[in-house]
């Protein structure tokens, strides 16, 4: 079953990369969600997915009775889910704010910080106004 999970992770990675390479930053966001799901599944699978009881210690015992699921990757993934959510929430707001400021969702058109370098032009010359609305 690990083989099937590994293939699933591959599909998630491929779709998320395809989305993140799009010019539309909204698609990028959707790709980001898929990528964090893929990462979580990777950790989970690497810690060996077993169809076992949850890692709990029954009353009256000092240690789990019999084989339980691997607790360590679960703890790692739990942290990762929450952090991924924090990242996504921030990215969402950033995209929204960027749209308000620049009037576009096209990442190719977002050239405030690193403007197009024409022949002979010096990079960074166009950003004299400095900083976005975030500043």
């Amino acid at each position, binding site marked *: 079953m690990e083989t099937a999970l590994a293939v699933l992770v591959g599909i998630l990675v491929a779709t998320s990369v395809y989305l993140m390479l799009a010019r539309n930053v909204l698609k990028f966001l959707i790709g980001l969600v898929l990528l964090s799901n893929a990462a979580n599944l990777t950790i989970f699978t690497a810690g060996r997915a077993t169809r076992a009881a949850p890692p709990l210690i029954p009353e009256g015992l000092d240690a789990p009775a019999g084989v339980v699921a691997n607790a360590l990757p679960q703890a790692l993934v739990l*942290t990762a889910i929450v952090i991924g959510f924090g990242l996504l929430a921030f990215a969402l707001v950033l995209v929204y704010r960027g749209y308000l400021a620049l009037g576009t969702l096209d990442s190719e058109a977002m050239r405030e910080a690193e403007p197009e370098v024409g022949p002979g032009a010096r990079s960074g010359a166009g950003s004299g106004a400095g900083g976005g609305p975030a500043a």
Partner: protein
Amino acid sequence: MRDQGSGEGLDAAAGHGDARPALPVWIGWLAASVPAVLALLFAGQVPAVAGGEPLRLSVDWVPSLEVRLSFLLDGLSLTFALLISGIGAFVLLYSGAYLGGHPQLGRYYLYLLTFMAAMLGLVLADNLITLFVFWELTTLTSYLLVGFDHASAKARRAALQALLVTGAGGLALLAGLILLGVAAGSFEISEIVASGDLLREHSLYLPILVLVLLGAFTKSAQVPFHFWLPNAMAAPTPGSAYLHSATMVKAGIYLLARLHPALSGTEAWIWSLTIFGAVTAVWASVLALRQTDLKLVLAYTTVMALGTLTMFLGAEATVAVAAAMTFLIVHSFYKAALFLIVGIVDHRTGTRELGRLGGLARAMPVTAAAAALAAFSMAGFPPFLGFIGKELKYEGALAIASEPLLVASAAVLANALMVAVAAIVAVRPFFGPRPAMPKPPREASLRMWIGPLFLAVLGLSFGLAPSLLADLFVQPGVTAILGRPEEVKLALWHGINLPLMLSLLTFALGVGIYAVHQRLRAALAAAEARLPLTADRAWDRLLDGLKTLAAVQTRVLQNGRLTNYLLVVFVTLALALAGSFLVFRDALQLPAAAPGLLPREWGLLGLIAAGALLAAGTRSRLAAISALGVVGVGIALLFVSFGAPDLAITQLLVETLVVILLAVLMVRLPGFGAVASGGVWTRRRDAVVALALGAVVTAVLLAVVAAPFDRDVTAFFEAASLPEAFGRNIVNVILVDFRALDTFGEVAVVMVAALSAFALLRGGAGRGAPK
């Protein structure tokens, strides 16, 4: 040339604005007493070491990496240590007078002393890594010394050039030393030199040799890396005298001598040292003749001496190595003396240009005497030590079995030019008519002339008592270089033989060259002007090329397009992961048959895959968000199936929030159609990258899962959860107890994200309201 010539000393002092009080003279004596005491201590060890009892001292430094602070005092390192500390004492004393009144004299003392300490550590180290650390320290401190006159762009350029050239060589050397340590199975030099036969047969021998030679050749200024040394003459003269007579540039020679028993004797060793050394010796002698600045003349003869030493260290014959060892000592004496004398001339007359100097002997008799003594030794006249050194060189050259003719003719040519240069340095400025000079010449103070005079007299006395030198230094040194007990006898008179004939030829040639040197110089200058490229200019082009490359690379990789950045990241990741399979071929495998999936799990997997594909392919925002929801919930159900209810709960909660937030955002933003997608081919390229990365991630994950599983950490948590942390939910215990700090960090991250989002949202319309 002129501006470079005039005394950096007093003039430079006027250039600095700060009016710090000058250092009292006694500080100079104090500073000089440090190396003087060291020299006496080292001298006290001479009888024991000459008697064949090397001294070892060893302290653990980084035991896990086999790095030990171990030091060895044998014939070779003792000779170097004495030269470094002895000449160092005179140089420090001299600096006090040369830079008298300079506001940064104290700093100069500090640099010199630090450099000396590094140099001593280098020659005494008996551990490869210890040696390397001191090696790099000499590079750094010589950078400070060369760039001492930091207000001058020329000095800064020279310092940086020396640093980059020798620093690059140092990196190569580090790699070579590590390979050497691995191949020999020890990082202790005294153990490595005992396993020479093993090393010469080792498959890593050639890489080791090439890397070590790169380090030695850059440090010791062999062609084609010779150009940094003459430029480094931008240093104040006492520093140049120190760096370029017995210390810094001889570090490479020392390394070759030190590793001689371990690496020498192969065709590769013999030919590379002989050819690089011979070319350097001859080419540098020619360039020396071309200069008009006294200090540059000496700089190029130093390069010549380094080439000669390299050439002789290429050999196996005892007499050749004895020639190298003797010449090393001879050269240190006369070169340090002459550099210091040039400094005196410069300091007292305000110029070092040959054309503006003459007839100084009357005004500066002591200096002139010292110059004459040193120059006789340099030219190799009897009864000076230089004569013995030269005879030995010819004997050694003729003893080199493989290519005596090449070595002997290179030696004769280089020595003939040396005779001419000695005459130019010691005769031209001191005799003949006296032209008008920037300052009326006066004799230098005792602090300045004592060093050169002492060194020049040493050259004479050892020439009169050569057996003393042979027994105390040359023989122990040769024993250390060859790694076997050797007997070396030095004598002034060898009878009428081939070396003597060659000596006579050398004198005749040298005097002839001196007679026509002005015409020769003009011809050389004209020839040099026609050269399409000198090493120095090539260096500038190399640096320019590096800058251009950096600019081009930045333009290509960092062109300001988000999609481009991501593409670079993803492609690099895919290549790196795929590349790791090239290294670990057998990792690529399917896991052993495991229990299959239940039908409902297959259903979940299919649902998640379909959701992901729909999210990637749809043109509708609503469909994409719904698909995301399907993926998230599907994964949550998978967690339930595999015994992870905590994960399932969190995942459900977060997925719900994600979908809601995305949906809310979408309401305020235009649809997918508002942004033109890239061209068909761009998207196809993206698809290829995506598929490739997905495939390698799957392969890596399969390889991970196929590897044997180590459940130790989990077992610890399972056993310790209740007794130590009093919790029955192991996942929760890990989060809030065993890895509580991580969880704390996680909470902080979420909080920072929330704060930033809040700040972004209420940041007002600002400059960029929607257009």
